[in-house]
């Protein structure tokens, strides 16, 4: 292999370098990236149904363009009176699989490992090799005109399945595109879809901001059950849009279980709102601005039986919220997405304190601000360069001093900086299947989070692989 690790004075353990024979590989790899951790959505079953190339709906699949957005907003209908399954051959079944055989390298800095005499030490860990992503097995489409559906059993790379989404949607209620009702587990109408973005690595394959949850200090955990707005959720969504989807809104009422089935938490409900407006800027293209908010509650303790929590009996609900604004900007072939988000978790959640016990002295509800800028340069429908920088800054820590200790919590504890860069090349572009050669590099640094020495941790991923769906 062309990669090697080098340890020398002043050089972090495991720093990735290239030997002479690896320079060519390295030049390529610098632009590249890693592991599929998020189910992503591109459905050639639709392309087959309508005879359109992937590029009709996707800027670069799975990222939607506005035509694809309108198609999705219409309930997977083109509205040309050919949408109902009655117009399809009886043998047609809208099913799609997606997977990414890959090679990837993961480098994790300052990981806690067992040391001599029962101690713990920190060490950099690097691993690499050929691997598989998870697999998505999609079926989606229309049950009837203006009744659409989606079922997505998704497995991780070991083959363990779960339902990533499963819903039925009633479209164009009362003949209006402003009223569409979705029922079931669904992707929130997030500002920039995490399911349809163009990153696959373990560190870059999700928005840090969509899943960030603050904790009280190093080694502590949060009681918040909410996995973030990037997770698919269980509930109902009322969504509406103008005919060209330039104006859009969505309201979801969701069980407070972060999309987990079996009623595992409590009986409260969360609320998610998103609204946006697009406008044309001449030859630059379509620009969109919007705002969103998620308000939820999470239990802080459960009834127990023999000490074990009884699912669904969550008590002592405490609140949290995420609010933000965003913009999606086009400058011809170049486009970039910007997002700002502010969040707050109740002190009980962040300090891991059941609400039937008093809060530790000095504890506060942590707040944070974050944002990202993600850029794409679509050279043509078959080649796209991608890049993203993301930052999260905790503006108020849950503790200034850890309870029962003299250990102060640094003001930047848990701050995150994340960077990804890569490209996707689609050697084929037609209406039957999709294939992309994907290369990506991602790096995430979190401040003062190492468990032994409370130092910064940096994790990086490098991935190259064939992302295909059929």
């Amino acid at each position, binding site marked *: 292999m062309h990669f090697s690790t080098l340890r020398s004075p002043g050089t972090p353990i495991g720093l990735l370098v290239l030997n002479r024979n690896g320079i060519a590989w390295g030049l390529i790899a610098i632009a590249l990236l890693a592991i599929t951790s998020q189910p992503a959505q591109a459905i050639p079953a639709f392309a087959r149904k*309508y*005879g*359109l*190339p992937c*590029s*009709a709906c996707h800027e670069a699949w799975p990222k939607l363009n*506005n*035509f694809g*957005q*309108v198609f999705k907003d219409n309930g997977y209908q*083109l*509205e*040309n*009176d*050919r949408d109902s399954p009655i117009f399809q051959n009886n043998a047609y079944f809208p099913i799609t699989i997606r997977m990414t055989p890959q090679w990837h390298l993961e480098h994790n800095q300052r990981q806690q490992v067992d040391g001599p005499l029962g101690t713990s030490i920190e060490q950099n860990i690097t691993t690499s090799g050929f691997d598989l992503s998870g697999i998505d097995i999609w079926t989606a489409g229309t049950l009837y005109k203006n009744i659409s559906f989606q079922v997505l059993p998704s497995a991780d790379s070991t083959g363990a399945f779960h339902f990533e989404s499963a819903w039925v949607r009633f479209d164009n209620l009362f003949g209006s595109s402003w009223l569409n009702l979705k029922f079931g587990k669904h992707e929130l109408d997030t500002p920039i879809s995490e399911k349809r973005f163009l990153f696959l690595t373990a560190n870059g394959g999700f928005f840090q901001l969509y899943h960030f949850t603050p904790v009280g200090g190093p080694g502590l955990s949060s009681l918040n059950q909410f996995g973030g707005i990037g997770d698919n959720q269980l509930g109902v969504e009322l969504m509406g849009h103008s*005919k*060209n*989807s330039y104006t859009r809104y969505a309201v979801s009422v969701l069980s407070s279980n972060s999309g987990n089935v079996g009623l595992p938490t409590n009986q409260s409900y969360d609320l998610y709102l998103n609204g946006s407006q697009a406008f*044309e800027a*001449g*030859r630059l*293209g*379509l620009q969109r601005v919007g705002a969103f908010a998620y308000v939820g509650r999470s239990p802080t303790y459960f009834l127990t039986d023999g000490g074990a929590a009884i699912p669904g009996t969550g008590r002592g609900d405490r609140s949290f919220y995420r609010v933000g604004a965003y913009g999606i900007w086009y400058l011809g072939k170049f486009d970039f997405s910007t997002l700002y988000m502010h969040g707050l978790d109740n002190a009980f959640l962040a300090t891991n304190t059941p609400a039937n016990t008093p809060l530790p002295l000095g504890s506060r509800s942590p707040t944070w601000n974050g944002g990202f800028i993600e850029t794409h340069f679509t050279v*043509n*429908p078959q080649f796209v360069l991608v890049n993203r920088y993301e930052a999260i800054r905790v503006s108020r820590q849950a503790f200034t001093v850890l309870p029962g200790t003299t250990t102060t919590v640094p003001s930047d504890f848990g701050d995150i900086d994340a960077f990804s860069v890569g490209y996707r090349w689609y050697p084929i572009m*037609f*209406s039957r299947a999709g294939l992309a050669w994907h290369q990506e590099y991602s790096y995430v640094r979190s401040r003062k989070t190492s468990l032994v020495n409370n130092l910064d941790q940096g994790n990086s991923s490098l991935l190259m692989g064939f992302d295909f769906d059929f």
Partner: protein
Amino acid sequence: MRGTRWNRWAGVGLAAAVLLCAGAASAQESHVGKYSGNAKAGKINYRRYCIGCHGPAGDGNGENAPWIDPKPRDFTAAVFKCRSTPTGTLPTDQDLYDAVTRGFDTTNMPPWMPLTVVDRVNLVAYIKTFSPKWKSDKAGAPVEIPAESPVTIESVLHGRELFQKMECWKCHGPEGHGDGPSAATLTDSKDRPIPPYNFSTGTRFKCGNTNRELYRIFMTGLDGTPMPSFADVIKPADAWDLVHFLRTLQPLVTPEATVWKAWVTTHGNELKPIGPEQAPGVGQ
């Protein structure tokens, strides 16, 4: 050394000149309202959105064409159904833009309204590069559409009379179900079977949905199909009467249908059926 440099610059200049000439040769523009489109930009979006059906050469032989019915438009023939211009003439850029925007119901052509205006205008410019007719001919002058006459029962009944007299029923059927005696024999300009419009479905017409657009279809015809232009054989007032009658054949709530239903409940037995047994001109 200096000579080498000059040679290099000369080569660059020559290459640039060749490229400029090539660009000029393929230059095609479109004009819709205040927007101007160019074919070069349109080609990018044509590859992205249109090529799967209409094909790289614009001849309607895209990879999906074998499975599509009706077949995609052959742009190399420069024959278009939906025009505001007289039969046999090229459509205006606005006509092509409207067709792209509106799409065609009951076909695989979706409405491309989600694309920006600029993108659609550019597509129109590129579509015009597929046939030399766009360089040798000019688009026809749009037919004039006079103000619509009032919707009255007299107008509807006269339209019904014309439906019989002009033998519309032979293709569209006596009840407008698209099942006239000639329906099964109809073919388009490429000798492919083509069904007449079935009014009872209530779906949008090929070239629009309003009464004005239906009026225009009479006057321009649908080039490339058996639907002729009636511009030379029908007066504007008669054409509006025919529009009013045709609306009664659709299962829609329209002013025409309201007037018609009210009249039929009391005078229905006075109507003579439309069809071959009727002598021309004896509609009522």
